[in-house]
């Protein structure tokens, strides 16, 4: 019964979110709910607003209208200003793991320091405990042996796995993936996908923006198709990918299939 | 502490004459250093080591030693042989100095143009020197403009150093006025302001020139 009550608050909730860049409205009233332990994938052409949506959840983009909630706590706070908002958002972000297309590992720090910097400086963990935690996370992504190597020595796939470990080290409530495999050579995509699958097996809550249709279909509990700043269609992945209701979704998938031939 | 600019006003024509001298010197130096720099660069790239090695040595020497030291050397060195006016020594000294800096720029840009353009031109039937003169040098020149502009802006500021060897430019022209008026602060402030205005005008000119030529590469 208690687990039922826990699932009552969604982990991430996006309500009627609008975002404008100048005159261009890139998000036109988006609604989205990510329940605890669920995996949601967002697909769509470039410029559809899917990355902007994901970045908005982390407040890397500041939305113009609407509400974003993380575990029932409002992320965007138009009522807060200056340092008060800084403190608020820094605290919120510690509970969200973000993985970027271009990894954004800190090149001047070893792999293990990349992973342990935030736990040490933000959670005040001592060096030894942080290293233990960091090694644990690196093992989780299969890169424990690279702990004392600098990021420039790693392949793209390895970099992205370290970036995932870095995010995991903060024990986030949700992981956000912003086209995590788009910048990778094709042969390196699978190793990152595998790490993401293992997270799925551990029931990590995830919100994934991706171009990998078959991966999205395999791993997600729910899938959204976005285009032109709106959610065109959403459903269970099997339906969305094989038998979508909307013409636009069908066209997109068709084009995608052709391009990948 | 009170300021009195009346002496500056009295001697303003003298200052303007100094500006005029500085402008003429700068113009002569600009011509000499840009054209000379281009010639030096072309020769040092496209001829044998016997010719190019000494040229490169002088480029290097002028770039690694202070301008003032070079000026003193030229002033006293030439003075041993012939009697020439300070202004000529000044133009030559500043000219050689910036010729080296400009040649250094041209060498880089000529090499960067040379790659594919040389073969393309030769394949059209242009000879070696024609290719260099008609195809490579014009393109390299246009590519060099932003950096040449920077150098010329630096050069104009460096004309002030020529007062050390007695060229009657702005700073030198003010010396008498300062010695009789005892108002060094006022005079140097005005001189600095004049340089600042000239500098801003030159920067605007450089930006304009870059816009005019940027479509070509």
């Amino acid at each position: 019964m208690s687990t039922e009550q826990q699932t009552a608050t969604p982990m991430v909730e996006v309500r009627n979110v609008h975002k404008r860049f100048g005159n261009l409205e890139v998000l036109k009233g988006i609604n989205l709910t990510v329940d605890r332990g669920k995996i949601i994938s967002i697909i769509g052409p470039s410029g559809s607003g899917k990355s902007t949506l994901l970045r908005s959840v982390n407040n890397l983009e500041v939305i113009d209208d609407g509400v974003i909630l993380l575990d029932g706590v409002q992320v965007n706070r138009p009522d807060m200003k200056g340092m008060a908002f800084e403190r608020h958002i820094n605290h919120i972000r510690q509970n969200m793991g973000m993985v970027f297309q271009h990894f954004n590992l800190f090149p001047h720090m070893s792999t293990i320091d990349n992973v342990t910097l935030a736990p040490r400086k933000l959670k005040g963990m001592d060096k030894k405990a942080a290293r233990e935690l960091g090694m644990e996370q690196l093992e989780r992504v299969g890169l424990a042996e690279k702990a004392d190597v600098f990021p420039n020595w790693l392949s793209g796939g390895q970099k992205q796995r370290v970036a995932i470990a870095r995010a995991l080290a903060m024990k986030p409530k949700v992981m956000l993936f912003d086209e995590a495999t788009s910048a990778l050579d094709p042969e390196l995509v699978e190793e990152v996908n595998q790490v993401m699958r293992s997270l799925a097996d551990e029931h990590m809550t995830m919100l994934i923006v991706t171009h990998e249709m078959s991966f999205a279909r395999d791993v997600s509990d729910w899938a959204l198709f976005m285009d032109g700043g709106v959610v065109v269609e959403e459903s269970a992945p099997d339906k969305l990918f094989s038998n979508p209701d909307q013409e636009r979704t069908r066209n997109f998938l068709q084009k995608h299939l052709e391009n990948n031939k | 502490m009170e300021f009195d600019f009346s002496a500056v006003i009295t001697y303003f024509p003298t200052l303007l004459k100094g500006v005029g001298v500085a402008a003429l010197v700068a113009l002569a130096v600009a011509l000499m250093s840009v054209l000379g720099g281009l010639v030096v660069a072309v020769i040092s790239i496209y001829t044998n080591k016997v010719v190019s090695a000494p040229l490169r040595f002088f480029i290097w020497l002028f770039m690694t030693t202070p301008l003032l030291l070079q000026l003193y050397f030229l002033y006293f060195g030439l003075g041993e042989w012939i009697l020439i006016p300070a202004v000529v020594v000044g133009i030559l000294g500043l000219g050689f100095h910036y010729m080296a800096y400009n040649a250094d720029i041209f060498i880089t840009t000529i090499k960067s143009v040379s790659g594919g353009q040389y073969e393309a031109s030769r394949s059209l039937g242009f000879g070696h020197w024609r290719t260099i003169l008609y195809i490579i040098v014009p393109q390299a020149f246009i590519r060099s403009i932003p950096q040449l502009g920077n150098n010329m802006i630096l050069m104009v500021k460096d004309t002030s150093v020529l007062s050390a060897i007695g060229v009657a430019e702005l700073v030198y022209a003010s010396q008498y006025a300062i010695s009789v008026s005892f108002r060094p602060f006022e005079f140097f402030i005005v001189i600095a302001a004049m340089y600042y205005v000239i500098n801003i005008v030159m920067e605007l000119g450089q930006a304009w020139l870059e816009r005019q030529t940027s479509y070509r590469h």
Partner: protein
Amino acid sequence: MDFDLMVEVTPLLIRAAWVTIDISSRAIFFGFFVACGLVFLQTLRFAPIRWFARGYVSIVRGTPYFVQLLLVFYGGPSIGLRLDPVTCGVVVGAFNIGAYMSEAIRGSIESVDNGQTEAARSLGFGRAQTMFYIVLPQAASLMIRSVGVLAIVLIKNSSLVSIISVVELTYQAQRLIGSTYKPLEIFTLSALMYIVIIYAVMGIIELAYRRATRYTTQ
């Protein structure tokens, strides 16, 4: 070439070269703090302070170092600023190179990839922490070379303090040329000393750069 003369004047020139090194290194050292101050002022929210810092940088870069030196040395006393020649050389050098350096520092901070800031912020780091742990360490290695170039320019410009009769390398060279009438010998020796100083500095810069960026190269 008169080698006897060259041997004779070498100690004099070496002593003068030390003055050049002393003035330059002090100017570079203090100039770094001036630069950091200017960069800091330009990050403040209060606009007039930002304008002041930008205006200062613009004026220093837009006027000759030589005129700045004369202004402070000869004009300083009329606003109550009396400096001995060496101090004046150091102070003007520091405030001059500081302006240029602040631009180099700002440029290197801005050239750190924005993704680095985003990654740090997404982990929950605040602005200052992101600057301190992530951006500045990377900017520091980027700025080594540009600051190094400025240091070399300053060493060459330090010759100008000879005009306010600081007995540094160029002053000594000029005096010796005047008294011996051997410009080539004296020029060769003093040029050589500048070259040695400048190459030493270039070596230090290169070492520092390699050390600072060893994480990017194999």
